[in-house]
């Protein structure tokens, strides 16, 4: 195989890996938006807290990784539920802009609390996975990308299947589709809101741990939440499948730009910008995204 081709394949594979992780982060946005029409700007901070929860569990009580992961997910579920109950529910029926501002405020508060609890230092998980890189034919994948990617894929599959096949998942989809009708069918939509926030916080925790394994943990970890915005907009705010496809497209584009264009740009980086170019183009051409629902306002 020619060197050029290997280079391309290498970029594509790491693009898919990045994309899988973006997709998982994006699902945190989608789950909440679908059920409650709220864009949760604190998604990144839910990730950051989840990552710290797991780090604490592994450090303080020497819990094995799987136990720490589950504990962090459980703690995040409670945090998500509490956030919905104490912060979001009283705002039900308020203007969208107020709710969005509140989630931005929430992000700042979470970040501040994390500074107090864990300080601003960089931490990393004790080494969890085998160190040997994974060989896929001629392509090498660092182990600290490969295993987190597997975790992300498993989490996405779990949430996707749950939505599709469990009765609660079906009730969540129904509520997203038509709140009035769902209410009239005996679905307790307040409980669905609460479950949606808790599910979103759970996926965010897994995403936070995945990102933490790759790049370390600090109160700034949540910044990736906003970097994922282009993925959510491209895929469609209310589409789980869209998050997946959007994640992979952005991940691949980003890596191609980084591999082919950035070396020519003396210090500047197209890689960093590409996702936001896609964001702007999407909003201009197809504001509801590839798979999102086109909103039809009926008065």
């Amino acid at each position: 195989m020619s060197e050029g081709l290997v280079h391309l394949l290498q970029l594509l594979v790491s693009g898919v890996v990045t994309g899988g992780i973006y997709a998982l982060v994006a699902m945190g946005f989608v789950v909440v938006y679908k059920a409650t029409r709220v864009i949760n700007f604190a998604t990144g901070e839910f990730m950051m807290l989840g990552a710290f929860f797991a780090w604490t569990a592994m450090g303080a009580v020497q819990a094995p990784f799987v136990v720490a992961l589950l504990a962090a997910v459980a703690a995040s579920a409670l945090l998500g539920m509490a956030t919905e109950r104490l912060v979001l529910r009283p705002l039900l029926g308020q203007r969208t802009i107020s709710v969005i501002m509140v989630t931005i405020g929430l992000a700042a508060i979470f970040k501040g609390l994390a500074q107090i609890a864990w300080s601003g230092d960089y931490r990393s998980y004790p080494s969890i996975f085998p160190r040997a890189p994974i060989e896929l034919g001629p392509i090498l994948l660092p182990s600290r990308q490969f295993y987190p990617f597997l975790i992300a894929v498993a989490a996405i599959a779990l949430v996707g299947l749950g939505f599709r096949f469990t009765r609660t998942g079906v009730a969540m989809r129904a509520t997203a589709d038509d709140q009035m009708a769902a209410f009239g069918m005996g679905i307790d939509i307040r409980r669905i809101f609460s479950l949606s926030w808790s599910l979103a916080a759970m996926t965010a925790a897994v995403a936070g741990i995945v990102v933490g394994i790759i790049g370390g943990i600090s109160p700034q970890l949540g910044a990736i939440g906003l970097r994922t915005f282009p993925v959510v907009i491209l895929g469609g705010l209310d589409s789980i499948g869209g998050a997946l496809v959007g994640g992979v497209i952005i991940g691949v584009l980003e890596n191609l730009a980084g591999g082919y264009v950035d070396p020519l740009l003396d210090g500047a980086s197209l890689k960093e910008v590409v996702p936001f170019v896609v964001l702007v183009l999407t909003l201009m051409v197809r504001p509801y995204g590839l798979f999102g629902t086109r909103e039809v306002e009926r008065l």
Partner: protein
Amino acid sequence: MTGSPGVEGESRDILSVEGLSLSFGGLAALADVNLSVREGSITGIIGPNGAGKTSLLNCISGFYRPQRGRVTFDGKDVTRVAPDRRAALGIGRTFQNVALFEGMSVLDNVKLGAHARLRSGILSTMAFTPRARREELELREQVENEVFDFLEIEHLRHRTVGSLAYGLQKRVDLARALAMRPRILLLDEPVAGMNEEETEDMARFILDVQEERGVTIVLIEHDMGVVMDLCDRIAVLSFGERIAAGTPDEVRRDPEVIRAYLGEEAA
């Protein structure tokens, strides 16, 4: 003969609405409305556009909270009960503009109708416990027999709702409401927008639901032919007030009703 036939044959009221008032801002949608519905009957609510018919239905199913008055279902005051709890008590409904879950299959829609009756909680459905699975299977079987065969939509079960013709969507809406095994069914314009054949089918299904299932029916409808044919009793609303109530014949002859529909001079 023992007992008086009048008392024996007289059924009781399953639903009653007393002194119901509802306003949005300064606009009165309902003013001191009374309505009583006998168990097993078909009751029609008619009136010109904007008379408050759908508002009344929404107060009964719990989407609107009236400022004054009381809704009693099966002897129990439900005025302050949330819609999902009322559904669980046996108040089912369909919607004026079909409000099905569009992206889902007919089967999923109808199964959602049965949601309120299921007991296994969220964790057990997620864990696929034997109980949850058993409930799921029973539900499926029951839905097949009671709903799909009954409404003649068995061939549609895997179709996506959004792909069905309007008349069939309305039938699926009815199917979903039936899957709740309601004791009373509120139908908001069940034949609106249907052609003659679809209207006849729907009217027949409504009668079947009442006769074979013993479900009490309250319906809003503009199609006077359907209302007069189906209903045992009719209540007439105009500008938020109940101006008449009685059998179809009584209502048809009521001068107040004629005035509301045809204007002042006609009366």
